[in-house]
């Protein structure tokens, strides 16, 4: 199913200079180094990678919270680079952000009502105070909070509740696209599930496009339609989630998937061990950036930068040896059953039913 593109990045680069000044050589951190991607209207697009891969910077470039060193971002086909004043405000209305840390992303000195009402104030100034209050109450309801919460302050809420406030705030302006930077990674497992479900429901309800940045592959798989895997400022693999997770083409994606422990007893691991850790983005290796850790690396990888090539419909990987590796090695993710006893399966079913009944 091919849908129209709502957000497009064209060869985005963001280089940070640090430690420069008076006779000291500046250190350039290539946080994002040549990223192109397309997000389709109505889908959930995920960007996954380990710490320091540049995914958060990428998210901020897409939002124009940061200006790119090079490249362009198109929203609805229009470049967002030069927007200012009214047009920038319009972009902000259409594109919203949910932050990773629900503790630090809400102004501690504003009530929830004010926080959620603020985008309305900015983007729908025609609303009266009462109308705005009503809208805020409605939004709070949508994210699973109660209208009377509007008078409280963020610190009175738990992490999960705060993340819902953040989501309500993002929804308030009536955006068409929401970018979530690790929206659930700071939450406890049980709460994380609540928020994931909520996001999914809201997406349907408001006909949103979601861009989710995360490091947790299981969460990504669960939430996203398409995924892009980042390593050292570049996208190494992209494609429909099911496809990428079942049949990864880039050795880094393989390694990531194989490293994730599944909560199933006795799962045999065909683990693809990676040596060492991610190199510094201020001095990325030549050639393929992954070659220093890649068990399949050859002389060619050290010298030549691999291009993104289409491996399967909609799936691309930037690896010289992708086909060969796929042919020689099976899927890193063993597909097996749940490993639960019969009684357990019944208990899980009962539980799911009970929870569904509760209407959580």
């Amino acid at each position: 199913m091919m849908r129209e593109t709502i957000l497009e990045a064209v060869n985005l680069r963001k280089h940070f200079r640090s430690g420069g000044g008076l006779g000291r050589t500046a250190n350039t951190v290539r946080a994002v180094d040549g990223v192109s991607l397309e997000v389709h209207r109505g889908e959930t697009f995920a960007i996954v990678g380990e710490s320091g891969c540049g995914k958060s910077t990428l998210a901020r470039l897409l939002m124009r919270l940061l200006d790119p060193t090079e490249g362009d971002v198109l929203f609805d086909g229009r470049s967002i680079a030069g927007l200012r004043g009214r047009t920038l405000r319009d972009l902000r209305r259409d594109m919203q952000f949910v932050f990773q840390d629900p503790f630090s992303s809400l102004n501690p000195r504003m009530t929830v009502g004010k926080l959620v009402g603020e985008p309305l104030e900015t983007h729908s100034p025609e609303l009266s105070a009462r109308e705005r209050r009503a809208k805020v109450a409605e939004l709070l309801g949508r994210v699973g909070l109660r209208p009377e919460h509007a008078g409280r302050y963020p610190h009175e809420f738990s992490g999960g509740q705060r993340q819902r406030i953040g989501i309500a705030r993002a929804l308030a302006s009536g955006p068409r696209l929401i970018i979530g930077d690790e929206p659930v990674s700071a939450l406890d497992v049980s709460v994380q599930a609540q928020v994931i479900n909520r996001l999914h429901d809201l997406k349907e309800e408001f006909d949103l496009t979601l861009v989710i940045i995360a490091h947790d592959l299981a969460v990504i798989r669960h939430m996203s339609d398409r995924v892009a895997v980042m390593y050292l400022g570049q996208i190494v693999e992209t494609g429909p989630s099911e496809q990428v997770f079942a049949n990864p083409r880039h050795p880094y994606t393989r390694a990531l998937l194989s490293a994730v422990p599944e909560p199933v007893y006795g799962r045999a691991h065909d683990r693809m061990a990676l040596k060492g850790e991610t190199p510094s983005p201020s001095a990325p290796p030549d050639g393929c950036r992954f070659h220093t850790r890649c068990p399949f690396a050859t002389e060619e990888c050290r010298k030549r930068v691999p291009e993104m090539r289409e491996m399967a419909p909609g799936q691309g990987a930037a690896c010289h040896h992708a086909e060969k590796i796929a042919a020689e090695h099976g899927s890193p993710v063993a597909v097996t059953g749940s490993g639960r006893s019969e009684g357990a399966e019944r208990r899980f079913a009962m539980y799911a039913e009970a929870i569904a009944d509760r209407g959580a």
Partner: protein
Amino acid sequence: MLAFIGRRLLVAIPTILLISVFVFLLQQLLPGDPILAMAGEERDPATIEFLREKYGLNDPLPVQYFKWIGGVIQGDLGISLRTNQPVSELLLQKLPVTIQLAVMALIFAVVIGVPAGILSAVKKGTVVDYAANVVALSGLSIPNFWLGIMLILLVSVKWGLLPASGYTPPGEDLVRSITTMLMPAFVLGTALAATLMRHTRSAMLGVLKSDYVRTARAKGLYERRVILRHAFRNALVPIVTLTALLFGELVAGAVLTEQIFTIPGFGKLVVDAVFNRDYAVVQGIVLCTAVGFIVMNLLADAAYFALNPRLRKS
């Protein structure tokens, strides 16, 4: 490290120039004509005119400034209007005095403040902590000129234990030099000790909560070692930095302390110079203390550098 200091020195130059402009302007803005006082009780107009000319006070301000700063760059800070002594010579005379006072005050402050800070951090929430805090706050709240007056009244006038004032160079008579300076150093050191104590306490509290202190405990080390080696070593960085930065406060505090105890140091010199409109002296001292302050800042940075392995190697 050397490159770092060199870089910092380069950065300091515009700051120092800026200070020199401030000082110069401020000084020029002062009302009152020093020449009038210099001309003597008779105030002969010819003498006044001659002196104005002699000290270049008839030149336009920028000219005066550039003459002065030009001299400063060559090490000539001008001469005192009041005593005709070269300002640099005056400064050199006063510097050891103020340094002795400052060092004694600092020693006092460190010896009292740091252990008290450690103790009260370790015993947080106990009577010891509470008492230390009360004493420290009192130390901060006592106006030190009043403390000085009261001490003179009690220790010197009533009990006759210590000399009330004056200064003896240590080279001349070390014991007397130290005894004379005891009270002023105490007065000047009280507030510093209090500041140090409070900062040591909060630095220690911060460090004691840190993960590596927990690690040290998990190793099974004795608590004393955990506190003195692992915690204090890391709290030391902000403490040393602060101590260097306290220099500014020391000099400011010395102004009054020296005034009260008649110690012929920087502070006394500057106050008298301001009151006598002894321009060159005021400019010289403020510039000198500002440079001193910047140097202390630099030392603080250097100490930070030296104590912080993270920076040392990079």
